[in-house]
């Protein structure tokens, strides 16, 4: 557009042109105004998201730090008013999370290996991947009910081993997903080099592929640990919780999330205080594992 059409002299330019110009300018202003409004709303949404995280962390620190002391780590849970700690819950969470991870990881690793190395896009491997994805997001409370039916009822009572099994079921799909993704990232030349030198397939997978995908797989396992360490619902029906000191796997076992659930709703101030301490511990632990896992993955990509 030339300068003359931008500012038409009266009588010389066509009146329609001048009108279009005004409309176009108004339209342009409107488009930019809409753009600005949407941008502002998006920034607001992000700020709200970050504020929620900050609010949760601040609440935990504010309420939890006050009750943090050495007795929390050295004494088991006690009746209200007798200065109890969380030792049995902390140990119970560590044991159940550890055993759950130990059971779930090899299975998940093998399923991921099957999907990446043996499946070859067959119908059954697609079904396995689909089912694993569904299990990844399935309500964890139902996993608890499943283990209750499968283990607790036949064994005649709640037990730490039932809790570990429920957590193991939650670990499997997470490890499957990361293992398959990581194995698929390995360049074909690496496999071909191994096979070309006469290595059998299982050696190629265990000695070449697993090593190349190691930090990705470790990330997956860490994320799985972070996920199950904070799980409450499946443990309510399996390991139940235990207010006394116990490391017997065939007996009900305490855990931090279940203790939070029992204490937070109680009428005793010191129990509620301990619930906040437990909440602080579990959140800091879970978030720390998450951040470590992210750094492990960043080293790779």
């Amino acid at each position, binding site marked *: 557009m030339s300068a003359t059409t931008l500012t038409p002299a009266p009588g010389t330019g066509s009146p329609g042109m001048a009108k279009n110009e005004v409309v176009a300018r108004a339209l342009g202003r409107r*488009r*930019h105004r*809409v753009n600005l409004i*949407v*941008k502002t*709303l*998006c*920034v607001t*949404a992000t700020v709200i*998201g970050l504020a929620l*995280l900050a*609010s*949760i962390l601040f609440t935990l620190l504010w309420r939890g730090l006050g009750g943090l002391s050495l007795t929390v780590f050295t004494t088991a849970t006690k009746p209200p008013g007798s200065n109890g700690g969380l030792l049995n819950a902390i140990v119970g969470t560590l044991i159940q999370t550890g055993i759950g991870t130990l059971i779930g990881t090899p*299975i998940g690793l*093998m*399923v991921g*290996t*099957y999907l990446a*190395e*043996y499946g070859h896009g067959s119908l*059954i491997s697609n079904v*396995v991947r*689909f*089912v*694993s994805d569904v299990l990844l*997001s*399935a*309500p964890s*409370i*139902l996993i608890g*009910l*499943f283990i209750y*039916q*499968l283990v607790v009822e036949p064994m005649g009572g709640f037990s730490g081993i039932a809790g570990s099994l429920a957590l193991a*079921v939650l670990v*499997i799909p997470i490890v499957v997903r990361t293992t*398959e993704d990581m194995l698929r990232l390995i360049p074909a030349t690496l496999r071909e080099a191994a096979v070309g*030198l006469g*290595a*059998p*397939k*299982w*050696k190629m*997978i265990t*000695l*070449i592929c697993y090593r190349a995908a190691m930090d990705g797989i470790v990330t997956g396992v860490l994320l799985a640990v*972070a996920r199950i360490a*904070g*799980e*409450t*619902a499946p443990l309510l029906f399996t390991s139940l919780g235990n207010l006394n000191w116990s490391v017997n796997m065939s007996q009900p076992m305490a855990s931090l*999330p279940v203790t*939070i*659930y029992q204490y937070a709703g109680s009428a005793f101030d010191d129990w509620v205080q301990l619930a906040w301490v437990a*909440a602080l511990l*579990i*959140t800091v632990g879970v*978030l720390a594992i*998450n*951040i470590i896992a992210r750094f492990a993955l960043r080293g790779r990509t």
Partner: protein
Amino acid sequence: MTRSGLPGRPRFRAPCSTVLRARRAGRLPRRAARVITLVGTVQNAIAVTPEPGRARRGAGRPWGDAVFAAAARASGGFVLLLLGGIILSLFIGGIAAFRQFGAGFVVSTDWDPVHQKFGALVSIYGTLVTSAIALALAVPLAFGIAFYLTELAPGWLRRPVGTAIELLAAVPSIIYGMWGFFVIVPIMSDTIQPAIINAFDGIPVLADLFAGPPFGTGIFTAALILAVMVIPFVAATMRDVFETVPPVYKESAYGVGCTTWEVMRSIVLPYTRVSVVGGIMLGLGRALGETMAVTFVIGNADRISTTLFGSGNTIASIVALEFPESPQGSLKLASLLALGFILFVISFIVLAISRTLLRPKVAG
């Protein structure tokens, strides 16, 4: 490498480089260096050729491959078995309730342990209503966050903000429950609920929907907490999906003068529409089965309340709350397991749709 029976080529590299270094420093005559390098090359060539004995040892154990493949296939089958086991165990556990009440179990609003009458409608209603409200609140916010992270945020801010949003997803659900109960519920009962009740006073439908004493707990508060929990999942999925749009499309739109919002609305959203719906369904799947956060704030009532500020329950919350008072073999426990079965069917359908929609765009 050497453990796999492969020859260790790097062994000869060190002497070669030593030779080169010595040659460069002028400590070695050119001809001598050439001879030494040649010897090294020949040695390397010999070493790379597989020794016949070693090669046969690898090939002589076909069972290694067979065992490993069988283990991998068996694990794949185990996952299918796991899903089948979950469905079957919930169904068998709940069969007494289905037998007793028939199809009426799903549409009955009874929950009367004294007269042994149980129905699922109250908790199905609570589950669907809380999840629907949660999604209505969460999707716009999640979209805003995903839009900000992909198009608006400066490069140095993307990673930390993205990580912070993902950490929000990692916080255990019981923490959301506590936070909701001790922080959100007082705010709701003191400020937000009275304000909403006053604002909608006299407006026909809304006044009924948001009526009732401001207890703070209830269906609306539960939906609010669920929304906070669902936001990071939906936002992260949307961000990943938005990033699959080829930059050329966006650049050509910017090139003809489109604003950021116009690029999002006319290029990115149409391109990713199916996957965005998949991401929302994934969030819905999460919301349907969420237990602890809801249990803390929903108020647990065995009836359908006409107002959103009223108490209610969801399938997950009633199972968590009533389970300790349900002795083994009782009709109540069977009813709870039947509720679990219904929840599994609902979330399986939602998650299956989500996966089908997400599959083409997001690999893996």
